[in-house]
């Protein structure tokens, strides 16, 4: 086979005459030629880069603005000026904001913020701890109740009671609103194929976007503050609940629905008596996902002035105060663990309860009443007495945690800096810098052409067109250079993530012990809000691009590992057995059987890895990763950069869409 053309389109499908007998060789030819084409594209790029370096790079200094950015600023200003006169705002956006704001404020007044006449919230720490413990016990079991009580008391000891309660209040509000929409919508999506067809791409899109980018446009309509934060959280947290509810409804066995039909059930009866009860357990899992997503988002929403732990972390990150950031990050982690455990226990509980029979139920009812009474007393006490309302102590545990973290980070910097810096510098100078230079110093049209070419080769014509559109729009945002910097970090981080994920994933798939040991850690890592990952790496690597990249790798690796492990494990045992009996050694089995057969999983893992990395690299703007992430953050804090921040958010979306389309198209090909 000869590939002389420089950028040929996807190789022609084999002709009909040789298709049947030579299917396998034809496929091999196609794969090799695709690889060669990619290589050819890269070589041409390097050659042209050497010649054209530094021309048409579209760089834009940090404080410079383009017309688009100024125009967006004007839009923002005019919206600000007409917020209370424009009917659309007066009767629509403002109303929504008012309702959400009132709801959020109401919950905040209950547990976190002082209300008008009182110096303290309505329910003090004792009451909150009581309620949390009681609810955890009632929906879960006494073990998670203990965990909850311990966790909540620890917030107080950390000196972060109010911040924690702010985070909790916003999370709960957002979850409430999200579920109010998501569950009925999910049922509808589950019942109707047509609605499903419409909603699936919308949900895909919503979930592809890095959390971050919801914030910018929302502030345009709902102002910076709690309401925007809550709405952004609702938007981010609703899709998993919708999806899981729909999935639950769809996976009710057809026979069961048919049986109800054959007994003459109306649609409503089969919904209420068959579909909903049978999907209850899965829906509770959806609630779990929603809560975790909401918590992650609420902390990030600190960027638009949402109160709570996220704010503490961000302020500490911006002043490079590792100790404080660690303390608050720890609180976020604990809250994530508590919420996750409680909802997981809730989804498992029903099963256990109904098995244990009637006598237990009767006793349980008495216990619930007694528990409720005790809780009521605690709430009353915390409403009435200061000692039960205000968490006692100065948060000394928090200070010790902070200083311990500081000491540790200083120690690490003093003693390991040689190692960490060497690692950082090697990677930065060896891989990141050259790659970034290649991307940013090439003429934009060259990079664009390369991207479109790769899109076509890897994903087919349609993804090529999508890439072309995205490239065009990226240029239009005026942030081409920043986008390329972010792209460089993202790609480097993704490559590292995939290397790590393939090694660990294959290991997990081949060894049950490894899987049993690693999987819980991965599960735990996935519930963490993204930017708690920044804190330890900030201590290790200081405020650089590299910190963001390492945090991104750690953030994205768990999901990629799990996908690869599952993909490799799904390779039929007989195939592996056949390879073994043919005399393959372990390495041959992995490289020639398991990985090629898990190709679909590998591309899917790349897709997820890219999206996760992108969202983290952007958050890395907080700790000196610069580029698009910095533009967005700066846009929130400085009025004249607002438009630029919005454009940067758009650029992130475009990068996300581009990655997603190419990898998904490639995954479809691999699967076919």
């Amino acid at each position: 086979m000869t590939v002389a053309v420089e950028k040929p389109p996807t190789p022609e499908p084999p002709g009909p005459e040789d298709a049947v007998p030579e299917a396998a060789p034809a496929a091999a030819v196609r794969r090799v030629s695709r690889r060669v084409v990619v290589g050819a594209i890269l070589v041409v790029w390097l050659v042209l880069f050497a010649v054209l370096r530094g021309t048409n790079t579209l760089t834009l200094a940090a404080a410079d603005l383009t017309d688009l950015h100024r125009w967006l600023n004007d839009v923002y200003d005019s919206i600000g000026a007409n917020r209370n006169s424009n009917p659309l705002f007066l009767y629509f956006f403002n109303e929504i904001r008012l309702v959400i704001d009132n709801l959020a404020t109401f919950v905040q007044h209950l547990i976190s913020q002082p209300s008008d006449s009182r110096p303290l919230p309505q329910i003090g720490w004792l009451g909150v701890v009581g309620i949390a413990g009681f609810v955890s016990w009632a929906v879960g079991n006494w073990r998670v109740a203990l965990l909850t009580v311990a966790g909540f008391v620890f917030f107080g000891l950390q000196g972060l009671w109010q911040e924690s309660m702010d985070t909790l209040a916003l999370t709960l509000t957002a979850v409430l609103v999200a579920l109010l929409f998501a569950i009925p919508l999910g049922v509808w999506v589950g019942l109707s194929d047509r609605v499903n067809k419409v909603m699936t791409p919308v949900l895909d899109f919503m979930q592809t976007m890095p959390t971050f980018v919801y914030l910018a446009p929302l502030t345009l309509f709902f102002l910076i503050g709690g309401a925007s934060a809550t709405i952004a959280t609702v938007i981010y947290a609703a899709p998993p609940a919708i999806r899981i509810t729909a999935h639950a409804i769809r996976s009710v066995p057809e026979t069961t629905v048919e049986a109800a039909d054959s007994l003459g059930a109306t649609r409503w009866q089969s919904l209420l008596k068959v579909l909903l009860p049978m999907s209850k357990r899965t829906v509770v899992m959806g609630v779990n996902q929603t809560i975790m997503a909401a918590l992650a988002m609420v902390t990030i929403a600190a960027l638009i002035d949402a109160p709570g732990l996220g704010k503490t972390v961000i302020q500490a990150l911006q002043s490079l105060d590792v100790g404080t950031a660690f303390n608050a990050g720890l609180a976020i982690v604990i809250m994530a663990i508590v919420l996750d455990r409680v909802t997981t226990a809730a989804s498992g509980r029903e099963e256990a309860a109904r098995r244990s029979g009637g006598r237990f139920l009767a006793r349980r009812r008495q216990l619930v009443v007694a528990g409720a009474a005790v809780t009521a007393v605690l709430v009353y006490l915390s409403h009435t007495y200061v000692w039960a309302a205000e968490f006692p102590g100065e948060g000394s545990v928090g200070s010790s945690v902070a200083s311990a973290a500081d000491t540790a980070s200083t120690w690490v910097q003093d003693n390991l800096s040689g190692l960490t810096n060497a690692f950082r510098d090697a990677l930065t100078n060896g891989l990141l810098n050259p790659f970034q230079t290649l991307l940013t110093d090439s003429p934009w049209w060259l990079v664009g052409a390369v991207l479109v070419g790769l899109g076509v080769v890897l994903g087919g014509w349609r993804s090529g067109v999508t890439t072309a559109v995205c490239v065009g729009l990226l240029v239009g945002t005026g942030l081409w250079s920043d986008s390329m910097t972010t792209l460089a970090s993202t790609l480097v981080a993704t490559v590292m993530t995939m290397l790590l994920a393939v090694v660990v994933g294959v290991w997990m798939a081949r060894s049950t012990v490894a899987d049993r040991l690693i999987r819980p850690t991965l599960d735990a890592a996935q519930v963490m809000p993204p930017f708690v990952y920044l804190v330890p790496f900030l201590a290790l690597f200081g405020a650089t691009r590299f910190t963001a990249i390492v945090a991104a790798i750690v953030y994205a690796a768990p999901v990629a590992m799990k996908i690869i492990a599952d993909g490799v494990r799904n390779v039929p045992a007989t195939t592996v057995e056949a390879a073994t009996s043919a005399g393959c050694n372990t390495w041959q089995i992995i490289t020639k059987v398991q990985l090629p057969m898990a190709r679909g999983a590998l591309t899917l893992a790349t897709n997820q890895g890219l999206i996760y990395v992108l969202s983290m690299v952007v958050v890395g703007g907080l700790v000196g990763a610069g580029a698009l992430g910095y533009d967005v953050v700066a846009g929130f804090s400085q009025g004249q950069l607002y438009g630029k921040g919005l454009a940067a958010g758009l650029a992130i979306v475009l990068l996300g869409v581009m990655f997603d389309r190419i990898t998904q198209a490639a995954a479809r090909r691999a699967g076919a």
Partner: protein
Amino acid sequence: MTPVQTEVPQRRGTPQDSDGTPVISVRGLWKVFGPKADRVPESEELCGLTRRELMDRTGCTAAVRDVHFDVSPGEVFVVMGLSGSGKSTLVRCLTRLIEPTAGEIVFEGENIRDADDKRLRELRRQKFSMVFQHFGLLPHRRVVDNVAFGLEIRGMGRAERMKRALEVVELVGLSGYENSYPDQLSGGMQQRVGLARALAGEPDVLFFDEPFSALDPLIRRDMQNEVIRLHHEVHKTMVFITHDLSEALKLGDRILIMRDGKMVQCGTGDELVGAPADDYVREFVKDVPRADVLTLRWIMRPPVDEDALDGPELGPDVVVREATRAVLAAEKPVKVVENGKLLGIVGDEEILAVVAGQEGDAR
């Protein structure tokens, strides 16, 4: 291959004779899946195509093609065919769980295809019920609540439906399990729950869609006997779908054999074995132990002059296996007599030809 609807020779006590009017009468029933399915039954040309040709021409699949049959009151009517023959679609069309494309289904004088949603629900609640291959039980409800489910849907009060449900639970032999959950029961017991749920509403007709295919052979036999017992106790009309010929022969008063959506033959078990309509049916019944199915009517021969006509008498509907001993013990050929009229005679040779499994054409 034209469907053959043989005249039914009266067999051991078939309830055929109880009443002339059928409970269910199906005429020209079609179910076509695919785009613009309606045109297929209307067009004579399309009707004539094979399944494959129809798929290529129109993109449609005809699951049920021009099926017609009657089910008499109290009868167990079995529809048999291999997978993909359209039998499950057929039974779903009868209660319109799948909407038929053409034809009529007359139940107690009413064309079910004309029923609106409300009437259809009423029929399903009061007149029909169905037992499914994969049970279709509600895992979150106890056995007794599953059994009472149909009654609950009708709006029956709690106390009343529980009382009825417990009766039926006992009827199907599940006493002591009423408070268990379905996943705590074995497959056979789960299907008993399905059966009880179907019986609870006192329907006129029970539909069974391969109810025992998912069960182990021994349990399947138990359940078949259970159905026979229940049929004796409650005398319901039953339409039973199966892919298992021995099950069909064991349970069915009459059997309809389907292939590629068309009916191939409809008749009693001994008719299928004794007079298969075509090679397909012949192939099907090849391995059936003929002595268990065929009656003397099928093996008797006309008497010739040298036959002694003073041997013992037997009826024409006696199964060969039951007659074997008597025929062999008698010194002279056995006379087959119906209402005092001599139909033919059966000697050792005829009996042995069947019992020894000799491949003789059974006429």
